[in-house]
């Protein structure tokens, strides 16, 4: 019972944060709404018994990535966005598309997987089990992903470095 109540509270906060993210015209309010979404998702993970994933969700998404978002917004000193009526194509095709998509999703969830919820603790929660999965069962995909991330970081450095700065270091080195 308590479980259901908490699930609903976190769910409502999460959806409200997501809607607020779109409605707000100031970028920093949108970014903070996203923090709320991340935090309430962490609450939902905790309710599913995935305490490690919940903690990582808070540390990585709410604590690190969103701080960098806020940091960039502060640095750019981005003001409130102007509100437009939106494009006509989006209204014509977007709303029916959204309706069809959500009905389809609901049908798949209810008809295909049944209304049976996943029992608490059925998925790996404790750090030890997750470590076994990451570093034992799926070691190769995990390492491949980390190489991919490394390449992305190096690419970002190359793209961000201005050519004259590279020339400068070449002369000095």
């Amino acid at each position: 019972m308590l479980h259901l109540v908490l699930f609903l509270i976190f769910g409502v906060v999460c959806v409200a944060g997501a809607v607020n993210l779109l409605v707000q015209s100031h970028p920093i309010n949108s970014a903070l709404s996203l923090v709320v979404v991340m935090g309430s998702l962490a609450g939902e993970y905790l309710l599913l018994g995935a305490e490690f994933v919940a903690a990582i969700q808070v540390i990585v998404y709410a604590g690190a990535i969103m701080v960098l978002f806020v940091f960039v917004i502060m640095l750019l000193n981005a003001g409130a966005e102007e509100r437009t009526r939106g494009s006509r194509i989006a209204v014509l095709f977007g709303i029916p598309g959204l309706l069809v998509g959500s009905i389809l999703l609901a049908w798949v969830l209810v008809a295909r997987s049944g209304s049976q919820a996943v029992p608490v603790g059925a998925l790996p929660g404790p750090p030890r089990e997750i470590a076994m999965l990451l570093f034992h069962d799926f070691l190769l995909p995990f390492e491949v992903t980390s190489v991919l991330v490394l390449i992305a970081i190096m690419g970002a450095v190359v793209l961000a470095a201005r050519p004259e700065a590279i020339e400068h270091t070449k002369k000095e080195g």
Partner: protein
Amino acid sequence: MLSIETYIIVSVIKTVIALFVLLTAVAYCVWLERKVVGHIQNRWGPTRVGPFGLLQPLADGMKFLFKEDLTPPHVYKPLYIAAPMLAVVFALTSIAVIPIGNWVTIGGVHTPLQITDVNIGLLVILGVTSLGVYGVALAGWSSNSKYSLLGGLRASAQMVSYEVSLGLSLIGVLIMAGSFSLREIVDAQGGTFWGFIPRWNLFHGQIVAFFIYLMAAYAETNRVPFDLPEAETELVAGYHTEYSAMKFAMFFMAEYANMITVACLASVLFLGGWKGLPFGPAWLQDLPVFWFVLKVFVFLFIYIWVRGTLPRFRYDQLMAFGWKFLLPLAIANLVITALIVAVRA
């Protein structure tokens, strides 16, 4: 196991006591700092209010409450008001998972001296402290003044940078204990070497990690020598320039509560938590909270001592120190610890 009603009552009582003790400790930490720094600088520090100035925190609190609460007209109000609240809430939350003593039985209720023992205790603290950046960053931005903005930017950049080294310095301890639970980490530090050196992580190969933690923690809490976010000579007061009265006091409380949390974490992870020295009379060994408080006090005293001794870093020195010295050192320490543990296992 306790029934659910007793469990809730016990938890509420523990929370209230912990918050009361923490807030009192915050107030007297300020007194201690003024007194110690005063003596370092050949002054007396507070002496007028009460014996040894002991009632000074009370007088300060009254003053903060009765000051006019100014809100400058150019601020972005919702975040300007929310920022100090965020700072103080996140600063006070992390005390919930810190164990200050072993299990005790009071009135037939068997309970640990800790608000709650979760199996990811350390991650909870890291998560809560990483959220604490928002208070500082938003205060700087919403004040809409250049000094505040610069202070807020510096603080968030500094806290994000040093959090990496801080986290890596803790992983060595985690490898040795094999658990995220702070209680199990303390339990893993029982026993002695040759009968007289306690088997604390500090003496158990993690001395480098301890000093990395010490330095990263100073930067995380924005204390001297890393107090660039509020460097008075260049930024007036940094991110809280535009705040007055109780809102300013909330930032002040958050800073000192963070110091105490960091000190508690240091004593749990590196100094054996509530475990006493392995010699001395037996009654002294069994004092439950005494050793924990003593270790936290020593750590706080070093904090203040450093503040009274060292000058402030330059900003580029701070970043270079964090990324080019502390981080490689933390990674090297982690790899060596992991190798030793793997070879022994």
